[in-house]
């Protein structure tokens, strides 16, 4: 069965690009283009959630909180995929249970595919906050 990914990303150009590349790599992708939609669409069928931070309606931190409070979604690995590199925001997200952080700007879509692989192989995979390039 194909792995199922929820992409919560508001920027149209970027979400279209990531959707394409994820689909090309045989993932099933569902797109949410704001925070509220992300919370609404999330359910236990997903293997991974890619979450932007600066989102309309409900910011990524609040989305993360809700997803981690929901018994159906709390065990799905969540990776922040954002261009916001603020250390305290990312640290807060890790404290809330985010397992990874990727800076959109510093990777190509192909690199995104590489970076998400470990999370799909092992849902408890955790990136080290200390190793991250933060503002």
């Amino acid at each position: 069965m194909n792995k199922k990914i929820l992409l919560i990303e508001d920027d149209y150009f970027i979400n279209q690009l990531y959707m394409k590349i994820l689909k090309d790599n045989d993932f099933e992708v569902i797109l949410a283009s704001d925070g509220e939609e992300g919370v609404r669409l999330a359910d236990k069928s997903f293997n991974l959630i890619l979450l932007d931070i600066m989102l309309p309606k409900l910011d990524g931190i609040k989305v993360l909180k809700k997803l981690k409070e929901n018994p159906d979604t709390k065990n799905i690995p969540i990776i922040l995929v954002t261009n916001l590199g603020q250390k305290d925001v990312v640290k807060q997200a890790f404290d809330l249970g985010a397992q990874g952080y990727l800076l959109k700007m510093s990777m190509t879509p192909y690199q995104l595919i590489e970076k998400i692989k470990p999370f799909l192989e092992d849902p408890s995979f955790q990136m080290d906050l200390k190793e991250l390039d933060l503002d």
Partner: protein
Amino acid sequence: MFNFGKLLFKNSSKTVPATDKKTAEQTNEKAELCDTSNKLALILSAISDPVIALDSNGKIILFNPAAEKLTGATFQEVQNQSITQILKLYQDNIEIPLTQFITTDKTSDVPTFKKDEVKFMSFKNKQGVVNLISNQIKGGDKADLGCIITLHDITELKSFEAMKLDFVSMAAHELRTPLTSIKGYLSVFMSENKGKFTDDQNTFLTRISISTEQLLDLVENLLNVSKIERGIFNVSTVSTDWVEIVKQTFDQFAERAKEKNLEYTLIKPTSPIPKLMLDKLRIVEVISNLLSNAIAYTPPGGKIKVSIKLSPDKDSVITSVADTGEGIPKEAIPHLFTKFFRVSGKLEQGSKGTGLGLYISKEITLMHHGKIWVDSEAGKGSTFSFSLPIEPSN
């Protein structure tokens, strides 16, 4: 749209004693009132903060456009409705009863009610955060006026604050987003159409791609400078295998050196190098900047040597990048590590750069309690070196 003029007139007219025979005086008075209330209405509608007036029963009699916008409800929908049905205000999740602002005791002097950072929710499900001020309308009982509530919408401010975003973070985010698109689409476009381009097209696409990377670097450099200047650029160090880091970074630049046909070598340290307390990501920038400069400012066929050694008194590790490039004129050396400095003529020669690399490298080295310097002779080449202290405990 609503009409305050009419509304206020309706209420104001109550102050005119109801009588069957209308005297000319009264008609005049009415016209005057109408005029005044029209003016008032216009003034109220021009106020950018939401203003809501209630009668003595807590029913809405005035609701300006800003209030409509905040609540998502039109004046028509809320007119004569009880405020409690339209808008709920909360502080620390406890509802603030809005009718408490209206007192039946007309003689008492009700203090102005003022509360900041109150959460609101309208019956249209609009929510946010406001600062609230409510005043009883003095002497308003005759005109059946209760109180006037002024709200100041701070929703956006709050969400901004919640993220503690400063200008630089915002700028970073806004600049990075379109650049991410350019970079992303370009890489997918180029890889999906590999082999289909003419040589010219390949050259153009490569130049677009290099320029995009330069712009991304520039954005990051400018952000770093801004952080340095505001004192929020800090390092958090952990015990690190420096030799390994240099090796990895060296390897990352091997391709660029090869393209320029440079002899590119990493000299193994002759004595063991202890682990150092470093902020890995930051310190990598220093060695990267020196390597990128050495490659950029050394003509094809030149040599680049990277070495790591202990300082003579063994209290620090010295890393050097030596090149056989154009070198640096003596008079330029004192300015080399200041921001935006470039040796003159560089731009005309078509080499790209902003003059930030060495400045940032110096700052990062200083934050690690190290030093950075250069030995150079114009025409012969340059050796950039920096020292990193060895912690006594190590």
